[in-house]
């Protein structure tokens, strides 16, 4: 069983450690106030976009399916949250769950389209659906408030109101950790392997008994669930939802996050989300660049081209493969030399 430990050596213990450490820093910061509220809001944004990227990765990175309409599901999650929290004063957790489940239902319906279409055709069909839903958001004023948008109260859980953005950041960090662990488990199991198999060769997948219909629908359902939840977290963070942002640009940003950060990679998803959130902030501070309108799109596009050309597995996987792994392997080799062990025997379980 040594080899299985080797394969499983990327234990999620390190995700837990990283997130808990981050939470500790934020908790200390609630007392000393080192980070500005703008920085805290950026971190919140990185986290909910991180969940978006994790979800989109289920679809694209693991399942090999594409959608340019997922922004609409994020918007649906956000509006549901605004509606339920505003009109029914529901608690944070049930709202979050419903805001994931209803987009999941719509995502499954979109998956039915995916059964018939591939690649570009699928991208165009999903794009059309996304734009349609965005129109509905603008017109259906009873639910969405139309162009004036909707406001919603602060999140409330078990009678506690998250009035401080530090506290909200701590809360959604925990949610992120839960999502990361579930994604990790999902990717390393029969279902996750079936998705990856479908991505790599549909023929071989079918010949081994994988029902492509089932797993395509599942990829769309799961990714819509994640994205809906992220929409809910967005709504609670901004406490204002308006129809403008749920368009093609956001769907393309989701694609960019996954491609830049790393296909089928959990830390890569967070890298990609951080990249897309921080690029506009950084470019704003650079003297010449900030005069160019739409510089964000240009930089994102350039980054995608650069990543696809030079590190097709994404920034995170590239870093791990070229920088972290060689270092770790050197340690393992040194260790082996000391122990005099063969290659098969070394126990590389880092957890």
């Amino acid at each position, binding site marked *: 069983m040594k*080899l*299985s430990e080797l394969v499983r050596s990327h234990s999620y213990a390190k995700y837990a450690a990283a997130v808990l450490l981050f939470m500790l820093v934020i908790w200390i910061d609630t007392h000393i106030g080192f980070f500005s509220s703008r920085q805290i809001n950026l971190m919140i944004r990185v986290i909910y976009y991180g969940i978006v990227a994790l979800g989109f990765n289920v679809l694209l990175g693991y399942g090999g399916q594409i959608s340019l309409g997922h922004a609409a599901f994020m918007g649906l999650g956000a509006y549901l949250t605004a509606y339920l929290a505003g009109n029914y004063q529901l608690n944070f957790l049930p709202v979050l769950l419903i805001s994931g489940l209803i987009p999941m239902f719509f995502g499954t319906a979109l998956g039915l389209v995916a059964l018939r279409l591939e690649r570009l055709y699928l991208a165009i069909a999903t794009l059309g659906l996304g734009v349609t839903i965005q129109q509905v958001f603008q017109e259906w004023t009873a639910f969405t408030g139309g162009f004036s948008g909707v406001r919603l109260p602060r999140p409330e859980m078990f009678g506690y109101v998250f009035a401080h953005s530090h506290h909200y950041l701590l809360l959604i960090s925990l949610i992120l950790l839960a999502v990361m662990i579930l994604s990790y488990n999902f990717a390393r199991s*029969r279902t996750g392997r*079936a998705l*990856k198999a479908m991505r790599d060769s549909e*023929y071989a*997948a079918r*010949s*081994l008994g994988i029902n492509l219909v089932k797993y395509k629908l599942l990829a769309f359902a799961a990714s819509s669930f994640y994205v809906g939840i992220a929409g809910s977290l967005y709504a609670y963070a901004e406490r204002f939802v308006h129809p403008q942002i749920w368009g093609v640009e956001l769907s393309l940003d989701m694609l960019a996050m996954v491609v830049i950060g790393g296909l089928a990679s959990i830390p890569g998803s967070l890298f990609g989300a951080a990249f897309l959130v921080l690029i506009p902030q950084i470019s704003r501070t650079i003297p010449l660049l900030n005069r160019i309108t739409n510089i964000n799109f240009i930089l994102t596009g350039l980054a995608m081209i650069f990543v696809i050309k030079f590190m097709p597995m994404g920034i995170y996987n590239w870093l791990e493969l070229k920088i972290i792994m060689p270092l770790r392997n050197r340690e393992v080799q040194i260790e082996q030399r000391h122990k005099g062990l063969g290659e098969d025997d070394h126990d590389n379980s880092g957890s």
Partner: protein
Amino acid sequence: MTILEAKDLVKTFGGLTAVDSLSFSLQEGEIYGLIGPNGAGKTTVFNIITRFYQADSGQIILRNNGQDLELLDLKAHQIPEQGIARTFQNLELFPNLTVLENLMVGRHVNLKTNILQEIFRLPSFFRREEAAENQAMEILDFFDLLERASRRAGSLPYGEQKLVELARVLMTDPDILLLDEPAAGLNASETHRLAERLREIRANFGITLFVVEHDMELVMDICERICVINFGQVVKIGTPEEIQNSQKVQEAYLGGEEN
């Protein structure tokens, strides 16, 4: 005892009749060869049996535990559940998965974990996953691929990739294995080793082998019975000796005199 029987299979592509009222049957536990010149319809037969192609007419009966099952009523992904698995002529590995993951995908049908057990890592998940992994390791050991387990499948040399595909298909616990040109691209010594392994597979796992192959030496070496087809029709069915001595077979391959 007959385990698989094809009756009057017909498959046309537009005006071309690729398989023309073809009938044959496999006995349980035998190594059965399907040979013929290029374009004779061999791979088409495999694609019909595994339901990648829809036959125009005919029947394929699987006789399992005395029960007859019409395979043409099933969908492609339901075929492995019935104990029939195949390899591909042009190697269909999952190149971005590790060798071990490739084998674990092979276990898909028999690994009974559901998504809740998987995402919450319930004890039943570990038990079943581990059992499957142990089996994968045994099979990798059989193919001398143990130290390749955590390598990306696409990074292996061609000969090893072919073995991984064979190992993966054994993970489905098949009764009948359809091998589409298992020796293609292998050198002489690899082919020789393959022949030994195929015999061992039959002996150890009791699997009926159905082999499409161009390497005549291999076919004559391992097959007990051979079916020669040309233009989608049976030319001759018989033992290797009968096939080698058949005038009709030689004509099919070399082109006989016109009338």
